[in-house]
């Protein structure tokens, strides 16, 4: 019994030490600065490049969470601890600003999303030369799009199909991804033979090898993507610095390289 006690005593300093070590490490990290970003699923690759570059320049750690804009919107309304919100639809940040949950005047339209029809590299149909006709091909049994009920890319896809006059024809073939990333995954895995996905995903490493056909921008309402710095941001200065970084020439070039269009009005932004 007594022996048991002494051997226990030997260890009793360990838990506080571990706790202390954690606190020290945590403080050290916090001093370097850290921002948390909620980003729409279509930004997966663009945001990875942007944050890597930003981390290199400023030594601020960037934590990005990807998801659907609508989901983030309701999470932020319920107090999710993000500093910045990059939405696929500018409507959400606009509403956050109206509700007083965003830093006034920081609302910014950072990009315009483009959509493409994408077919897998080993598929029977190559969309490149055919455009809309590819979707009517008999070998295309399923066409993946994002859910038009709540995903902006899904709404754009449906609008474009209607404009092309083939919506009723292809409707029985449509399957719906929870967000644009899942729609891409449905077709990339071969379960759907074609998909209408974000250009930003079609140029990503996993999908670059497939065939794509750009849907003309005027065939659907513009996918205006907006961002805000949130009112409760823990690290507001760093968040604003990141926003500046996205606005400047390098940031814009990265967005373009990753499949976005930059709004005309932003092109005059400072270098």
């Amino acid at each position, binding site marked *: 019994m007594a022996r048991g006690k002494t051997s226990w005593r030997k260890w009793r300093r360990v838990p506080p030490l571990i706790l202390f070590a954690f606190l020290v490490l945590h403080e050290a990290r916090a001093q370097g600065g850290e921002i948390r970003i909620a980003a729409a699923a279509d930004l997966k690759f663009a945001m990875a490049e942007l944050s890597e570059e930003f981390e290199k320049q400023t030594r601020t750690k960037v934590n990005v969470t990807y998801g659907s804009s609508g989901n983030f919107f*309701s999470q932020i309304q319920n107090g999710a601890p993000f500093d910045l919100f990059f939405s696929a639809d500018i409507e959400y940040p606009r509403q956050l600003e109206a509700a007083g949950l965003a830093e006034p005047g920081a609302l910014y339209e950072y990009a315009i999303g483009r959509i493409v029809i994408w077919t897998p590299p080993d598929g029977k149909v190559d969309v490149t030369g055919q455009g809309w006709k590819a979707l009517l091909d008999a070998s295309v049994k*399923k066409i993946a799009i994002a859910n038009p009920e709540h995903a902006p890319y899904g709404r754009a896809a449906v609008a474009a199909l209607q404009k092309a006059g083939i919506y009723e024809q292809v409707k029985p073939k449509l*399957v719906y991804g929870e967000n644009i990333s899942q729609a891409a995954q449905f077709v990339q895995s071969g379960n*759907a033979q074609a998909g209408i996905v974000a250009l930003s995903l079609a140029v990503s490493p996993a999908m670059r090898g497939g065939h794509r056909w750009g849907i003309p921008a005027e065939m659907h309402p513009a996918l205006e993507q907006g961002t805000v710095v949130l009112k409760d941001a823990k690290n507001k200065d760093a968040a604003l610095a990141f926003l500046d970084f996205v606005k400047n020439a390098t940031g814009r070039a990265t967005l373009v390289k990753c499949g976005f269009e930059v709004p005309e009005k932003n092109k005059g932004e400072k270098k």
Partner: protein
Amino acid sequence: MGKPRENAEKGRRMEALWLSLKLAACVAAILLAIGMPVAYWLAYSSWRGRFLLESIVALPLVLPPTVLGFYALVAMGPRGPLGKLWIALFGHGLAFTFGGLILASVLYSFPFAVQPLIASFEAVDRRLLDASEVLGAGAFRTFWQVILPLSLPGVVTASVLSFAHTLGEFGVVLMVGGNLAGVTRTVSIDIYDHVQSLEYGAANRMAVVLLVISFAVLSVVYAVNRRVWTPWAAK
């Protein structure tokens, strides 16, 4: 909200609910049919490696739906073994179909059917089995006339739990379903859609229905177990 829209929402709700009930019933029936032989073997086998199979059966309990959903999606695709076979047989893939959902749900709910069956098979008094054998009954007859009647509460638990678990399934359906009305848009997916569209009222109407059904179903399990199982366990 206008009347037509209200009706449309109601129609959609009923469609999703009906689909979920249909899926859950099919899965429960299939699991009972597959689960019984598997549970029988696991309960009475004296093979030393039995624990390995038991671990495999229990895997879906600990694996996240994302893992099952991911493997299911890849396996069902044209490059997966299952997808290849299915396309050769029926000319279309398994993903985004009711059959695909059944398959994924059977995997996902497997332990919920098999584990109660094993427990109740194992609880049957071995002397009764010996007596049955001595009296000349074969293994099959012993199963039907001795083991099964004595394991009825376990059978009820197994079917009710696999039914309820399938009804509440979300992640796997989300990953392989494709959200098709009347085919793969189950109650849980419909609720998620409503929440995503910030239609909390509609989400709530649906969620309450699921809550009530789930409670009712679980009450059945516990009622059966209380009344029938306790006296046996005491024996």
